[in-house]
């Protein structure tokens, strides 16, 4: 168990040293800053603590955002993987729908927002769909490519042994495409956070994005930075959660990659 602990310590140390160095540099670099837009880190951390490290701040600003994010990202993940799998398995359909998908993908957000407002209103539903729409694409593209990249021989194994549709998906397609699906989902996670902020400017029902923009408008620059810090940390924490899931699901892949699994 001692080695396990020291392993953990190494991981934490490796992961922490650069952020610590940067924070220290930021702290001293900004200590005597007089620029309104670049306040000293001490005052940013003060705002951060004041705005976010209490139950009220979390309940009124963070929880609604997390809910939106969870729903939006969830919808994107589910629909991206499902549609990506279908398209990945039927190249003809994929080729046929490619132009349409590429066009949809390239609709600018400025134009998208009014369309979404008209179609879905200004409430939660619209925001969830907006987040889902934005973060859908990386998952879709990666799933399509991932599914198509699965070792062809394994598809033949599935055919010879006449796997049913479900078993084929669960035992061959998804595991085979999972490294790439994870890569897409990790990208999509951050995109969904970014779109969350944009979507919260509509309606104005609180949330971290609304808080950030309101702070910006009211020249509460430390609070704005505090919200950026909060967003960044949130992004980091969500990515950690993701990495933990990935560690379990892609265990085989990690082991296989690190010298055929013999060494850790």
């Amino acid at each position, binding site marked *: 168990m001692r080695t396990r602990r020291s392993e953990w310590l190494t991981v934490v140390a490796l992961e922490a040293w650069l952020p610590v160095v940067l924070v220290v540099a930021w702290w001293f670099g900004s200590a005597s800053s007089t620029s309104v837009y670049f306040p000293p880190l001490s005052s940013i951390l003060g705002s951060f603590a004041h705005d976010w490290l209490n139950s009220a701040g979390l309940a009124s600003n963070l929880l609604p955002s997390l809910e939106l994010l969870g729903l939006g990202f969830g919808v994107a993940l589910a629909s991206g993987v499902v549609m990506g799998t279908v398209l990945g398995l039927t190249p003809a359909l994929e080729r046929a729908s490619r132009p349409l998908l590429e066009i949809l993908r390239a609709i600018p957000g400025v134009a998208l927002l009014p369309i979404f407002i008209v179609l879905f209103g200004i409430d939660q539903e619209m925001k969830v769909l907006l987040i889902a729409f934005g973060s859908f694409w990386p998952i879709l593209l990666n799933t399509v490519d991932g599914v198509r990249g699965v070792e062809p021989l*394994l598809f*033949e194994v599935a055919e*010879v042994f006449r796997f049913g549709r479900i078993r084929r998906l669960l035992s061959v397609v998804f*595991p085979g495409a999972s490294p790439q699906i994870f890569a897409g989902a990790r990208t999509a996670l951050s995109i969904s956070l970014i779109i969350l902020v944009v979507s919260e400017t509509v309606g104005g029902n609180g949330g971290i994005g609304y808080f950030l923009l309101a702070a910006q408008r009211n020249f509460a620059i430390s609070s704005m930075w505090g919200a950026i810090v909060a967003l960044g940390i949130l992004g980091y924490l969500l990515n950690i959660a993701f990495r933990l899931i990935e560690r379990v699901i892609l265990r085989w892949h990690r082991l296989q990659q690190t010298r055929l699994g013999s060494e850790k």
Partner: protein
Amino acid sequence: MTIHRSPTGPNSAHTSSAVILEARGLGHSYNDRAVLSPMDFTVFEGEFVCIVGPSGVGKTTLLRCLAALQPSTSGAVYVRSERVTQPTAGVALVFQDYSRSLMPWSSVLANVALPLRAAGSSRASARTDALRALALVGLDDVAAGMYPWQLSGGMQQRVAIARALASRPTLLLMDEPFASVDAYTRADLEDLMQRLQRELSLTVLLVTHDIDEAVYLSDRVIALNGRPAHVADIVSVDLGSRRDQLTTKGMPEFAELRARVHGLIRGSRGTTS
């Protein structure tokens, strides 16, 4: 080990048994380069047929066409008189590239159990059957719990065999299934195949480049040759229904058959010499 052939065994198959597999005018080209020129042959139920031929002649291609994994560019394949375009139930294939044919994300046990689960077995019975099949090919519980890529080449190959056996096929197509195992394991596996063929009245079509193996195992040997490949000859092996590694291989008929098959292949050798 002595193999007792049943009276209805393969050597009488030509006359008494039904045709299980038939190739009619089966030919294949890759991008307009002909690999198999149209060929005809039949395999009878309960028969053990080996396919031999030089490297690159088209054995794998033929097997893949027979398994309906790849549409042939001419002719057709019939399984029990029905034309097949999709892999049929009861047919299992052991791939030549065994290491790629195992799912790296599943344990060995799960790899072997998967076809059983797909065929509707319960989790528990699939597990039992898979472990039994693994034991048949000489792999223990430790190996069953490992990932395929943690096993040696020969062990992986045996996992692929175990997977095919576990699925209880009636027609087993095997593509150089013993290429990576040592001489003893190979002999054991050969005898295992014979026993299974007899006991379960399995039909086996096995590609091999070991002519001794082909003669030892088969009721008939199909020799492929030429470019594009054609059937050079189909040799009936009448070594009786009781075979064993030492006695049979020592028989003068064995040496004779072996020489004959050798001659068939030698006919069209490539640039190697």
